[in-house]
């Protein structure tokens, strides 16, 4: 029984002609699977490797380089991923206090997901939103000039 849907496999296959080597589709494939299934299981790694004609250990090797990808079922991402930037520009304008606030408010540490499965909180190294420091990355979009109240509003919106 396959863990990846036929649809996602086809979307991975569709990328192959864009690159001179199949292995180059590793990161795009990991992103697709991670986005949809909220983690990349060992079975999914095997199936990605089959499409890319690689040994599963090659996909695993690449995936584990990027702390970005969650492997274990128990670490599955919530509905949305909220990264609080701790880069210098944000730190100078209150990022550490903001991280404390978010951890307190959500009752989780960075790297963990709320009990309702809605929000995975993370810290990020500089996200390049320094003109709006302190900043948050909501999935892959910047939220600028984040006050504790603005963060609370963001959490409420995600949980709606």
């Amino acid at each position, binding site marked *: 029984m396959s863990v990846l849907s036929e649809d996602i496999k086809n979307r991975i296959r569709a990328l192959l002609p*864009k*690159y*001179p*080597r199949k*292995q*180059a*589709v*590793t*990161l*795009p494939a*990991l*992103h697709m699977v991670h986005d949809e299934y909220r983690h990349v299981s060992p079975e999914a790694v095997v199936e990605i490797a089959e499409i*890319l004609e690689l040994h599963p250990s090659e996909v695993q*090797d*690449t995936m584990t*380089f*990027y*702390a*970005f*990808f969650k492997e274990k079922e128990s670490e599955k991402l919530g509905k949305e991923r909220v*990264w609080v930037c*701790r*880069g*210098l*520009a944000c*730190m*100078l*304008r209150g990022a*550490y206090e903001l*991280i404390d606030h978010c951890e307190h408010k959500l009752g989780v*540490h*960075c*790297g963990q997901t709320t009990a309702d499965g809605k929000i995975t909180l993370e*810290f*990020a*190294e*500089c*996200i*390049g*939103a*320094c*003109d*709006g*420091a302190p900043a948050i*990355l909501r*999935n*892959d*979009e*910047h939220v600028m000039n984040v006050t504790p109240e603005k963060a609370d509003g963001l959490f409420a919106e995600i949980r709606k």
Partner: protein
Amino acid sequence: MKYEPILLARIHKPNSHQLEGYRADGGYAAIEQALVDKKPADVIAQVKDAGLRGRGGAGFPTGLKWTFLPKDHPGPIYLCVNADESEPCTYNNRILMEKDPHQVLEGIMLACYAIRSEKAFFYVRYEYGTAYRALEAAIAELYAAGLLGKNIFGSDFHLDIVLHRGAGAYICGEETGLIESLEGKRAWPRIKPPFPAIEGAFRKPTIVNNVETMACVTQIMRRGIDWFKSLGVPPDPKNPRDAGSYGPKLYTIAGHVEKPVCVELPMGVSLRELVEVHGGGVWKGRKAKAVNPGGLSMGFVDVLAPLKGEDGKTEYDIPLDFNGPGKVGCLGLGTAAVTVIDDQTSMVDVLHNVTQFFSHESCGQCTPCREGTGWMLKIMERFRRGLGRREDLDILVDVADRIGIIPGTTICGLSDGAGWPVKTAIRKFRSEFEEAIRKGEPSRYAKPLQMVGAH
């Protein structure tokens, strides 16, 4: 006279990211013209003669880099556009990609025509989702208009641009780390030589260029060499190796200023003018203590330290051109990202943040970097808890001096960048660190943040 921006001229227009508006403003005329009356070598010559130096950090002359490709290579030759902008406090590429992606894409077309490449890989850091989608839409517009693909403008020039997303790793901004990541491997930088121009992506000749560099190529081909050379700073006559600092530059201002902003100015504006005029001055009526002049890797400027041989001036007055920061012990211009630290901020906390970043982002391939950045963070953790020791300061400088590609102990420059802020902070603000040792008080941030999976 007020400078009129060129690279940022369009960013405040409505729908500045769309093809229609870009073409109405004369967009894609430069590539159309080049395809008619210029050979690839002419484009290389124009970029080279304009004196354009790469905007990504190292400042290598762009046209010269292009000439390093093997002559009469049967192909394929690749262009990789480096949009892994991850140097802390830097965001100029993001503004260009989000607000005026076509200016960048036209530069890519011109560069690919010049280097005889039919495929460009545009590597965008994951954290730039908005920029990624702006580029995705812009590239789709180009294919729909027949401006990408086969026989562009009816010529025999073909080009495909492939967008590729990173996954949150600073090392992917190092050009060979980027190539390894693109190939689907761990982003471990390669030993050079061979340089990418000889053997790069997929073992083919490859040029890696920065996003702002591509926008500059567009403007050089549109406005000419004289325009580009009318801006910036000519070579230092006393330094035969100086290639000059010509052209406009995007400076980003962040940290303790009233108005964090990205501004375009002729190369060579002073740090003081950037902060006091363009950044609206130091916030809350405070004074600046330290400034990071070009991304964390470049080190720190001591705002009050007198500038040698320049009466009444301080390090705050250095020009931000390719030579300026080096005159005060910084590594270089870097990404021209200026971060201001006010006089009420502890350098212990600042340096802790810096070492935390590099320790987290060291890719782990070279032992001196992996271990050195970790040791420096551990020492700074101790400082933050009020347990710094006098000998720690010498140990920090010693480690910082020994890790990196310049001392020759690592494959890439990440750890040079990790060392520079440490040694400049301790050399320039030593008394502050000594006072912290004497007082032994923990920082208000002494509770360490949880460390999860470094890469």
